[in-house]
Each structure stands twice: as C-alpha cells, then as structure tokens.
C-alpha cells in the first residue's frame, strides 16, 4: 500500500495545486502522472484536499474480505469521533451500528489518551528542556524529514491507538484477533501499514471514518452501545494540551504555524515552556480530514457533552507506552559529494527562468534542476524556455 494512491478512473488536470501545497515538496507530475516521493511524504492530507480532479486518495480496507480471516474482530474508535455527534446518545447509537458491521467488540481509547496527555505534561515538567508531543504522526514525520535537530526532543511515547491495540491483544491473547483502526485522518490511516518507529504495528487494518459511515448510517437504530469515554482524555483534546499557561504548555495547530514554531525552536528562540503540543490539523484530531464537521463546531460539540464522559483513566506502566525512537537518516553521501551535487543544481538553476511556475511538473525551478542532476528529467521540459525559443 502506498500512502497516497491515484484513482485510476480520473485524469490529472495538471492544476499543480498538489505541487504548490505539499509541505515537504514530495510531489512531481510527469506525463499527467502524479508521483509522490515516499521518502519525503509525511502523510498529511494537503494534496488530497487540494486536488482539483479528485485523483488522489488513500486506500481503504475492504472489510468483506478481511473480517472472516479472524475469529474475533475489534474496532478501535477515535475520541475525535465525538466531534461529529450532537449528543452522547447519538454517539452510543453510532458505536452500536459500528458493531453491526461485523465486529465482536468496539473499543475506545480516550482513557489511554488521557493517561498519556497527563504523563506528557508531568514528564516534560520534570525533565530539563523543551519537549514536543508525539501524538500526531504527520508532525513526527515532519520533524524527522525537515527538522532533524529537534528529533531527540519528541517525547518517546507511542501513539495512543497503538497502545490501545496492544492492550486488546494482551487481553485476548488466546484468540485470533483482527484489530481495525477507524481513522479520522490520513496520517493515522498510514500507521497500520507504515508504522513510524514501531517496527511492528499492533493494528491489522486501517479504514477511514468517511469510508464506513454510509454503511453505519444504514445500520443505526435505537440500540445503544455501552461505551464510556474518559473525561481527561477528551478534555485534553479541548483544553490541557491545547494551551494551558499554568502548565507551561504551548499548543500549535496547522502545518504552517507548526513549521514556523519548529524554525524558532531550532534557533532555541523559545526556552520558557516545558511542552509544545503540536497538531497538523486545526483543533487537533478533531480537524481530521475524514470527520465532516468543521473543527471549531466539532470542538463545541465535544465540550457541550462534557458531563457525559464518566469513564476512568487507564492505568499504564512505562512498558505499555514508552518506545525507543531511532533517527533514520536519509543521508548516505559524503559532504563533498553533496556539495558537488548542490553546485551542479545551482549551475542548472542559473539557466532556468526561476519563475517557479510549476508548469514542468516540479514544485520549483530548483526541484526541476535537482531532478535533472539526478538524471530523472531534462531541461527541455521547461515550458518557459520552450516559449522563449519560438
């Protein structure tokens, strides 16, 4: 499975919106084919959102084929799903409908999120220096690819959904369990197949909320699934990790603002806080691409149900959630080789118009120059130069 796949039935319109919006310049378009460089892709949803021809999407699992492979199927539902609900009863009905899809159990993990959020705040306060939360897969990848000096500041916590999946496995150790993660965003969708630093993911299948919701709505009736959300796990979504001065926590949302904050952190311009909670989407996971309510409305929905979250916080030990992150450096060339490569790119760049129009299918003239040096492209693809000749 690739992070971003192409819909074979639609044609790329060459609107170059994906090129221009990709935060890591991972995209190029050659012969109306969108190519995503998997070494650079951080699995955000920007290109999918921007695509004019709706050609880009993420692959979903086909449950009709996979449910029968296991004796016992568990659906993990994200806390952010609450943001799409107008009442807690509606949420319980929805969970019951999810069960009807063919699952044996529906599991929530706000209790685990609650514990990890609390622990993140405590630990960052106890330890020296500024720490970064590790809950958003997209942000973790962004730091790995673009802000390598900050990598060691990411708290060594696993994703709550992974912790939850492992807990389910421990509990049902004698059964052949199939674990499905219901996802609110593209980053989380790719976790099951592309575990980031967890050498093996505990999740078997990932599916997007929007993919299964048409089916769920047909199955919804008056029955309620007894599910209890933890107040702190939910509350952290809307409060503690979202900027709390008494706890020295700064929140930042959205890729652009996160990038600008990471720039300043690399200069050590920010030193007076303990923890920076970073989320690629507005209002955190509530802003996930596969949820349909506006993130700010979603936040209101979640807050207005605050009294209904009666579940207890999880009791976890360090072995449950701590992971060792290893920095995967992409660099295999010597500094001399890199400098030669860099100056060759600059030489070609001089010959290019440097309008960064994107008509060639690369995000900027520099990216075209790089592709030429790497032997993957030719200067003749530059449309501006072609126009000058005629």
């Amino acid at each position, binding site marked *: 499975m690739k992070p971003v796949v192409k819909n074979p039935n639609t044609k790329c319109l060459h609107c170059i919106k994906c090129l221009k919006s990709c935060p890591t310049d991972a995209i190029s378009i050659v012969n109306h084919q969108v190519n995503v460089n998997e070494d650079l892709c951080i699995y955000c949803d920007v290109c999918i959102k921007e695509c004019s021809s709706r050609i880009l999407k993420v692959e979903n699992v086909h449950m009709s084929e996979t449910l029968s492979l296991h004796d016992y199927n568990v659906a993990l539902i994200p806390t952010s799903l609450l943001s799409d609900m107008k009442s807690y009863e509606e949420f319980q009905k929805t969970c019951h409908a999810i069960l009807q899809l063919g699952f044996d159990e529906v599991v929530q993990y706000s209790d685990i999120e609650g514990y990890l959020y609390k622990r993140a705040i405590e630990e960052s306060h106890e330890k020296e220096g500024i720490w970064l939360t590790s809950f958003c897969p997209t942000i973790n990848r962004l730091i790995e690819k*673009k802000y*390598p*000096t900050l*990598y060691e500041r990411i708290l060594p916590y696993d994703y709550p959904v992974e912790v939850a999946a492992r807990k389910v496995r421990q509990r049902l150790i004698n059964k052949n369990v199939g674990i499905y993660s219901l996802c609110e965003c593209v980053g989380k969708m790719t976790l099951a197949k592309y575990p980031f630093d967890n050498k093996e993911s505990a999740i078997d299948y990932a599916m997007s909320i929007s993919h299964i919701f048409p089916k769920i709505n047909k199955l919804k009736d008056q029955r309620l699934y007894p599910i209890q959300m933890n107040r702190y796990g939910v509350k952290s979504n809307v409060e503690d990790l979202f900027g709390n001065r008494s706890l020295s926590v700064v929140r930042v949302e959205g890729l652009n603002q996160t990038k600008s904050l990471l*720039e300043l952190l*690399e*200069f*050590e*311009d920010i030193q007076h806080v303990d923890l920076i909670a970073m989320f690629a989407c507005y209002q955190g996971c509530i802003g996930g691409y596969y949820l349909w309510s506006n993130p700010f409305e979603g936040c209101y929905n979640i807050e207005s149900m605050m009294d209904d979250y009666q579940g207890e916080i999880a009791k976890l030990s360090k072995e449950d959630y701590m992971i060792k992150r290893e*920095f995967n450096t*992409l*660099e295999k*060339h010597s*500094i*001399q080789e*890199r*400098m030669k490569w*860099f*100056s060759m790119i600059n030489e070609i760049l001089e010959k290019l118009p440097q309008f960064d129009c994107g008509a060639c299918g690369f995000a900027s003239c520099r990216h075209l120059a790089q592709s030429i040096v790497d032997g993957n492209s030719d200067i003749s693809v530059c449309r501006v130069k072609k126009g000058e000749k005629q």
Partner: protein
Amino acid sequence: MKKIYQVEKDNYEDAGQVSRDIKKTLKILGIDPKVLKRVSIACYEAEINLVIHSNGGTILFEVTDNGTILLSFDDIGPGIPNIDLALTPGWSTASKKAREFGFGAGMGLDNMKNCASTFQIESSSEGTHLKMSFV
C-alpha cells in the same frame, strides 16, 4: 561554497531570515543534525545582534571542501566598548525596542562561543568582526 548576505540595522521584521536560509542550505547538504543545531543557534544569535546593535553589515557563509562551516559577521560600527563585559552571560545593552520584540537577554555572545568550534571577535568604533567555525 560561499554566500554573502546583507543585514539591515533595526529591521526586526526580517531578523532571522539569513539564518533560516543558511539552515535550509545546510539541511540540503545533509549536515549532521548535532552540528546543524550549533550552527543554527550561533548564526541566529549573531544575526539578531547585527540587527539590534550594529549599524548594519554583512554575513559571509562558507562551507569548505572538507565540510567545515565558516561564518563571518562584519558590521560598520559602532563597535563593542568592552568585549570581556559583552561576553559575560546576562550582560545586555539592548534597547527597549529590542527587548519588546523578545530579543536582548544578554546571553548572545556567550552562547555563540559555546556553540562554535573556534570563536574570534575584534571590535573598534569602525566595526565589529566576528568569525566562527564549526566542525
């Protein structure tokens, strides 16, 4: 590989842009993150110093063939009256305006010295010349 940048006096809006550009180049070159971190911090401190304290100047950025990173900051005055004092942590002559922007904590020179592999500073009323290298 060499690059020269101009830095304007009191241009707080663009303060840090040179350091951002240098950092970006070093990332493309695949410099070790530990070295990159030291260069970024020292370069940013020095650039902010040029903006706050000097009458403007230039930043010369160079990567030598063996991978050593050189940074030179040359301004056109007014000079640092007492360098020893300026190197003392916490000593600051930053203006009220600079402090309002969050700059001028007085840790700059000391911090740079700790980050750089070699650190040279000369100053007269004609200008201050700061050279740092990073291995």
